[in-house]
């Protein structure tokens, strides 16, 4: 009786082992079904989703113009104090005063990519970009000014 149980246990053990090994062997013989990506080597062909939340950027058009009015909606929506809007008054040739941004300071090291600032923006001036390789040697480089130097607000955006 004991011998019979012992032998059946061995047979069951070996058969379950072979069953598992068959799966492993199948993928060894079918390398095309392996989906591993060789990440640092495939940077050129790496496809990122266009919605991927990597960092906040401010798109500028070819005339170096952006859509930010300096309303500070993003600053109020941010849970971490990542965004700081510095405003100034621009004087137009006709003598009219208009509020505009001096700098939109974005601190990447505080950002949690929650997307609340992008949703809060009434003029779609900022958006999320799919860049994810953010490592730098100096921490101060993570504090960025999103508007380019000499940029202006686009005509027709209030």
């Amino acid at each position, binding site marked *: 009786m004991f011998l019979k149980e012992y032998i059946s246990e061995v047979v069951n053990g070996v058969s*379950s*082992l072979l*069953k598992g090994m068959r*799966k492993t062997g199948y993928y060894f013989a079918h390398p095309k079904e392996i989906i591993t990506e060789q990440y640092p080597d495939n940077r050129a062909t790496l496809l990122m*989703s266009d*919605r*991927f939340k990597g960092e906040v950027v401010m798109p500028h058009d070819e005339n170096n113009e952006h859509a930010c009015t300096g309303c500070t909606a993003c600053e109020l929506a941010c*849970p971490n104090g990542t965004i700081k809007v510095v405003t100034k008054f621009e004087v137009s040739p006709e003598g009219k005063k208009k509020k505009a941004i001096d700098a939109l300071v974005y601190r990447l090291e505080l950002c949690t990519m929650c*997307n609340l600032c992008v*949703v809060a923006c009434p003029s779609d001036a900022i958006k999320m970009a799919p860049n994810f390789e953010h490592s730098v040697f100096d921490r101060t480089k993570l504090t960025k000014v999103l508007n380019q130097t000499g940029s202006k607000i686009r005509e027709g955006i209030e």
Partner: protein
Amino acid sequence: MYNQTEIIKDTSELGAEGELVINMGPQHPATHGVLHLVVTLNGETIKKIEPHLGYIHRSIEKMCESLTYRQFIYVTSRMDYLSSHINNLGCALLVEKGMAIEVPDRAKYVRVILSELTRIASHELWLGAMAMDLGAFTPFFYAFREREMITDIMEDTCGARLTMNYIVPGGLMYDIHPDFQKKVKAFITQFKSKVNEYEDLVTNNVIFQSRTKGVGILSAEDAISYGCTGPVARASGVSCDIRKIYPYEVYDKVEFEEVLETAGDSFARYMVRVKEMNQSIRIIEQLIDNIPEGDFVGKTKNVLKLPKGEFYTRVETARGELGVFVVSEGGTTPHRIKFRSPGFSNLSVLNHIAAGSKIGDLMASMGTLDLVIPDIDR
């Protein structure tokens, strides 16, 4: 005055004669995070297990008190990071309940589909990691292959792979990706054809069965008295699925079974989770073709203010019942917030089920509790 000799004299914590106290963790590969277990051993037999918490405490509850009702949702992704979508859903449901915000049907359907995808992803990761704790390395990669498809869907639609923050009070942050339905259907086909690989590799494996069957037995009475929820309680035969008892969103419109096992051992907990994945697939199949057209977010005020009072909602995460309790004073931020996390109650049962067994069986008992440490510490 600090007296060193007296502290050394006090050996009561070191255990009796012949007993050995070892520290498992906080940096231990099998605790999956910074869980610190003080295990008292007599030879190889476990006398007592005492979890020490606090290594990853970020005071999320206190943090939420200084954030508005729109902002505090993203923090809850960092509690139980494997079912972050469901955590966000629980908080959004509370704000909607308190302010009587109408949620469009489209948002409800997408929320449920994403919740179930999150549940599958969480169970897949657990299955791989649990098998790895017991010495089987291969299932980890097989489970992650399917999980990768889900994280791709999340990346396309929500913009992130783990901490999504896709749910806002009133609906969704933005509409679903145009390829969403196609990709989810591709995942369902892939999952159905590959799920039998787990059966071959893990479920029917003799070594796995003999290491989990009859190990860490939890009776139904103890499961209730310790406050266990989720797959841990359902493996002991306690019916506790919030999706069935208090249906939220569209769970009352879909057909699915609450998976129950009666053995209460580690293998039963394993089987509950594997069967639950199939039930989640069943829910997604019923909803994916019927997502109604329309708005993805309802009309809400710009500044959300909960009326004065106390509010409580519960959702079923991958680990059990998550309760969100908010005391509001009528302002823009919560006055007090409390999360009833499933992981904490499930961890409290560890000493009960593992004491008296061998140290090797601790891995099976602890692994099948499916502990996520940031969920326990918050």
